[in-house]
């Protein structure tokens, strides 16, 4: 799967952009705030209909414009061609089309374009909040089986509804509140068990891939383990909800369930979240994302577009060069985009050199960057 061209109109700081891309590794350099990450964001929107920055449409539409237009020309390994077009309206609903046909679900875009984005935030993946690891897992579940998006969305909806009910019923719930709560619990148990099962299966599949990825990054043998931390799964969610009901009513929110789960990452029997060094945590974060990339590549028979967004900038030349080589030799890829504010290591892997200045992108040679 390869993005052959990308067109942006009134998206962030791009008034108009027409960028041709090829297979291989593209180096995109430029000072900060020139539009490197905006370009990455555009690719993610084309693949999932939403920004990974989690912002509303009016933040991505260029000032004074009513809509932003994103368009990508994509060709799959079997030579099928796809045109993905998205209009993000600053007010109102976004419109997405694949080959001129309107689509409304993320799954329709994900089956055309998949991306694996490495960002500097990956270093927080291991020591940061549990919600980061849940997102990693849930995004991976959806990338592997786009139909699961409905389940993930429904879990969120059920929790919002159940919490609203818990909050409004306060200390003295009526009999009809209890009956309604029974129904919400039945629904939450069904959806929650499904999400729990999907995450548990995913972690099983990720483990060997995370181990080999970590080994490829750091070079030495060590025992990396992943464990799904979901205490409610032992007796099932229906049972756990019954037990926590009093607590839930008192607090006015749902205290057990998949929305509180975590994935424990440990290295040589030490929990990396609390006991790992910064360097270890960073490598583990990268290894987790690499493992997802491997799994998605296997599942679809072709690797997602790989983006290394600003991942090398914080490292000195020698270490940046080493990480770059290790990542790219360990990852299956057909098309890669590497962004950096600093000159990138001279690597024979890099096939295209691009430079971004104030929302325009031009080809350059390696020496010019």
């Amino acid at each position, binding site marked *: 799967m390869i993005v052959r061209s990308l067109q942006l109109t009134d998206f962030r700081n791009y008034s108009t952009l027409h960028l041709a891309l090829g297979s291989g590794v593209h180096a995109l350099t430029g000072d900060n705030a020139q539009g490197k990450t905006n370009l990455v964001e555009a690719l993610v929107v084309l693949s999932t209909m939403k920004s990974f920055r989690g912002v509303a449409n009016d933040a991505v539409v260029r000032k004074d414009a009513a809509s932003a237009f994103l368009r990508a020309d994509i060709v799959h390994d079997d030579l099928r061609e796809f045109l993905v077009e998205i209009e993000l309206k600053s*007010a*109102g609903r976004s419109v997405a089309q694949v080959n001129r046909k309107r689509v409304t679900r993320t799954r329709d875009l994900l089956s055309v374009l998949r991306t694996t984005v490495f960002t500097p935030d990956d270093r927080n993946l291991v020591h940061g909040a549990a919600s980061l690891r849940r997102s990693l897992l849930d995004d991976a579940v959806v990338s592997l089986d786009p139909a699961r998006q*409905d389940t993930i969305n*429904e879990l969120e*909806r*059920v929790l*919002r*509804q*159940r919490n*609203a*009910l818990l909050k*409004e019923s306060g200390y003295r719930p*009526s009999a*009809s*509140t209890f*009956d*309604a709560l*029974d*129904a*919400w619990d*039945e*629904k939450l148990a069904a959806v929650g068990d499904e999400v729990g099962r999907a995450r548990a299966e995913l972690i099983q599949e990720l483990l060997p891939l995370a181990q080999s990825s970590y080994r490829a990054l750091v070079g030495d043998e060590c025992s990396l383990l992943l464990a799904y931390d979901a205490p409610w799964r032992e007796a099932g969610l229906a049972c756990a909800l019954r037990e926590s009901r009093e607590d839930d009513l008192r607090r006015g929110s749902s205290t057990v369930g998949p929305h509180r789960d975590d994935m424990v990452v440990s290295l040589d029997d030490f929990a990396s979240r609390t006991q790992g060094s910064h360097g270890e945590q960073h490598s583990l974060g990268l290894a987790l994302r690499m493992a997802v990339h491997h799994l998605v590549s296997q599942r679809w028979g072709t690797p997602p577009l790989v983006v290394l967004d600003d991942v090398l900038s914080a490292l000195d030349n020698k270490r940046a060069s080493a990480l770059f080589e290790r990542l790219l030799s360990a990852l299956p890829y057909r098309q890669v985009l590497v962004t950096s504010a600093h000159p990138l290591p001279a690597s024979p892997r890099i096939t295209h050199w691009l430079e971004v200045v104030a929302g325009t992108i031009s080809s350059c040679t390696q020496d010019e960057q």
Partner: protein
Amino acid sequence: MQAMIDSLARLPGVGPKSAQRIAFHLLKSDVEEVKKLTNAIQEARGSVRFCDRCFNFSETTYCHLCTDERRDTSVLCVVEESRDVVALEKTGQFRGRYHVLLGAINPLEGTGPEHLKVRELLLRLEPEGVQEVILCLNPNTEGDVTAMYLARLLKPLGVKVTQLAMGLPVGGDLEYADEVTLGRALMGRREVGE
């Protein structure tokens, strides 16, 4: 003028932009045309009410479906809104009676079971000799939970509780399903919890 736009924008499916467009259109239209429209709205609103038995729209105390003697009173189909009755009637597959809840359980919008016509549903079962209740709610989160709530209430009363077969587009409204799909889902209904 702003009051008119605000009122229009509160209608279902009308956003602020469409409200503005409709308002400008009405202001440009012939005065007689506008009068015709407002009269039609007022007349309909004044004469149409809810059926005293099933809460479907009706111009009389009981709606035409409740007074139709040929309909089977032993099977009752529970729906969220009157528009669902219209959708189900179009399939031509159902000869029983209806009960309109006037909504679904939705805590975020402040709708609990006590705001729906649930008590009225329970009161119909014995006098009308209802043997089967078909839960025909929208295939979305709130519809599912309302069905689960009703099933828990109805089953202990000894009435057969069924729901539509799978196959409806998930996350949507009943009214968007085509007649053939809806008819098939109705014929293939199965008992809840089996």
